[in-house]
């Protein structure tokens, strides 16, 4: 086991290093000079040397490989650079937005659990009933529906038509809890349905598998009541693999948060990243990509380890 973990760590680090390089290359492949574009857009500048000077201040005049190593060293020292478009420290901008995005993630996970797990269990217990059929198609629907369309439908129905929820925006929870909850209700639901669909299917198949096991039959044969069988004997083994999938859905959540934050005008990490791509705000794009991939990597790592722990065969295969 120990060896397996060490091997996984080495792999993960390798992947991270590769991801960082890929990120840097991709970001620098973006065409255009952000400084010139931004300065020309905002001020009537007729002097190119000033643009050069500002560029030099951001270190963008050096050779790309020098920039890469300087950025890398600073990044791991905790200095993620200065935003080209706002002049603020990227770390400060980042940490200000992390709680916002985390709130969305927590909310989305709650939605996913609340919707996905009961649906999955119900489907498994009433296999082949018409409700099972309905839930299965609903879960397929949940996985497939594009985030932006779901968002538009919800906004139209609840904010424009019924006018019971605000269409978009964000207020910090500690500033106005009620307003905050009202505002995150729709975005978290949109993010949650993606996971909920997958979760429901996974729970269903996991339960079906466990229910077919011998010890469940034995429990039933013992004359235990159905409820007891399900919740005392079946639930626990069925839920263990489900817990791991929650880790895997993390990556999907991050991807979804980009568009959700844009559509609901939520000042989170995803929105910052998106804006930065368009403004060619290199430090922000780089930081966002690395943090996001690091997140996914850690989650994958945890899942791998859990699998390895649960199923000794995995250790040998990988």
């Amino acid at each position, binding site marked *: 086991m120990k060896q397996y973990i060490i091997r996984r760590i080495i792999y993960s680090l390798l992947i991270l290093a590769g991801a960082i390089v890929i990120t840097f290359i991709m970001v620098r492949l973006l*065409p255009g000079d952000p400084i010139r574009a931004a300065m020309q857009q*905002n*001020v*009537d*500048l*007729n002097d190119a040397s*000033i643009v050069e000077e500002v560029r030099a201040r951001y270190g963008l005049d050096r050779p790309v490989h020098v920039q890469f190593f300087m950025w890398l060293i600073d990044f791991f020292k905790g200095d993620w650079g200065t935003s080209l478009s706002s002049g603020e420290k990227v770390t400060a901008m980042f940490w200000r937005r992390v709680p916002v995005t985390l709130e969305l993630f927590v909310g989305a996970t709650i939605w996913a659990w609340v919707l996905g797990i009961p649906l999955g269990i119900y489907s498994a217990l009433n296999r082949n009933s018409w409700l099972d059929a309905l839930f299965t198609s609903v879960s397929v629907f949940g996985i497939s529906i594009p985030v932006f369309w779901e968002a538009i439908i919800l906004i139209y129905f609840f904010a424009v038509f019924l006018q019971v929820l605000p269409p978009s925006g964000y207020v910090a929870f500690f500033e106005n809890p009620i307003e905050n909850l009202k505002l995150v209700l729709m975005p978290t639901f949109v993010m949650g349905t993606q996971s909920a669909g997958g979760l429901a299917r996974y729970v269903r198949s996991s339960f079906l598998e466990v229910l077919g096991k011998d010890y469940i039959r034995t429990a039933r044969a013992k004359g235990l009541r159905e409820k007891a069988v399900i919740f005392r004997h079946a639930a626990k083994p069925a839920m263990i693999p489900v817990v791991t999938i929650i880790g895997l859905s993390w990556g999907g959540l991050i991807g979804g948060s980009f568009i959700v934050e844009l559509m609901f005008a939520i000042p989170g990490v995803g929105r910052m990243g998106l804006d930065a791509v368009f403004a060619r705000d290199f430090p922000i794009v780089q930081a966002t990509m690395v943090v996001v991939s690091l997140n996914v990597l850690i989650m994958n790592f945890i899942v791998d380890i859990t699998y390895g722990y649960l199923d000794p065969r995995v250790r040998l295969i990988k």
Partner: protein
Amino acid sequence: MIFPKRVSIGAVLLTIILASTLFAAMNFFVHKALAQDEQSEWVWTQKNPKPSWWRWDEKYYPAKPVRGGIYRTAASRYIGLMNPNHWPVNDWVSMGNFYEKLILTDGNYRSTVPFLASYWEYKDPVTVIMKLRKGVKFTDGSAFNAEAIKFQIDWIRDKRNGAWSRAWLAPVKSIEVVDEYTVRWKFKKPWAGFLGIMSNVPGYVLSHQGLKNDVILRDLKKAQGQAKRLKRKLAKGGEKAKKKYEKAKADVDRLTPMAEGIVSLDAWGVGSGPWIIEEAKPGNRMKYKRNPNWWFGRSIGHPDMPYMDGVLVTVIPEPSVRLANLKAGKIEALHIDKSQYPLVKDDPNLNVWITPGNHVTSMVFNHAEGPCKDIRVRKAISHAIDRKAIIKGTQFGFGIEASCMYPAIHWTHNPNLKPVKYDPELSKKLLAEAGYAKGLTIRGVMGNDQSSVKLGQAIKSMLAQVGIEWKIRTVDPVSGSDANKNRDYDMAGGGWAWIYDPDLMATGLYHPDGGFNYGRSNNEKAIALIEAGRTETDLVKRQKIYWELEKILYENYEDAWLFWYVGIDANRKVVLGYNREMGMAGQEGYFATHPGWFKDGHN
């Protein structure tokens, strides 16, 4: 005629008597006000007479100002750096809350309103004498005087301070202190744009103490860096480095205590304006409190100015959310998007103002290569565009058909020019003459924001009707800037926003030195006029030059100018004190001198 003759003569007489009494009374009050505060001296000269909106009586606004209340408004982005000379500058509007300019512009965007500079005069084309307002103090207690201005200008011009606005002060040779409130400017060459620049970024007066602090911080940072580097060298055994290291170390030791407790102007703006920063939460909000000692209010006998207790600027990036906040009464005023107009026009709680602005939207041609070198092609394109339909279809009806580059309200616009007529038949004829009877394909670049895409599509379909296929690439601003630089287009979207001094735009677009030209336009007559405009210091003569310039460009179909901007603002009706007529006539000058107030002293 409704009245008999005699009565009407009486009425006229009466009016004259009344008017003169009023005038006398006003004079009396103004004199009294002036007497209250000896330090103020408003220098209105015969050349630069007092404008019509320079008044604060009932004619200005019927209700009496009330003190109190917090004015809440929204910004789309937060000011990253609060020193406008440092890049990036994200929010010009908030800067105006704490910094004031030397010279303000009037309703025609002419720099004529003396503000922190009370008087100026060209002694000769390369020398300007500038008198400064007396009795002004920055909100950190340091004094505003000739020394402060000289320090600021030298600070901007000093490369070490990294001020991007340095480019705008390139013609300055030197600035000298004549006496405590007078400076003498010397230019390298005759420079007419000087006044316009003094109404722009270099003209924002920053706290003297604040700039001095910035210099300390700058030197300390540099010394620290040097010391660190030299220490490493020293460890390797470089004897030479020792002396240098000791010097750097001494600098660090000397500057460290001085830098204690200092906050850079980048993080905390200090000026002489009506508002003082109270709280700055990056990315979230800015809170200002009232400056109780605002010099301007006292100088005209209204010491209760500014009337409100404070200003709160909240950052709300999304336009729809900003509007929702306005409608819910959570903010007081907002500049709104044209598409949102139907949502505010019937709101009983809101005043909606539609005002022309000083931006122009145009299509720029590549004169250096491709089919648009040919004037017949440019003319055909210009005549193929239905400007009225564009304004109606893409601007929700808010826009003014443009005839040339400077908007109609700008003092340099030539009023004799008429917008190019929509005439597709003429276009077809011209194209046939130019040898494109079978059709013409040209390349183009437009921004990928929604309004540019829309505009591009509308024009594309208009051009298609005369047989021109305009192949547009829609790109983000950064790639667009690249395409512009590489002249990778035949016709591209363009325009200019915030046109103050006419030279910046004229040079930028039509002079080889310009930052936006990149060799695309090279009209010799226009270039000669632009160069003449830079040096002509007489306002009337200078205006004539730009009229002529516009005419040359217009006749050469240099670009296709589409429309001038019209802006929509909305404010809650509880905010009083806006006189539209005066506001239009005075623009920046009016807004800086006529603060509003709440009807009942609270919001």
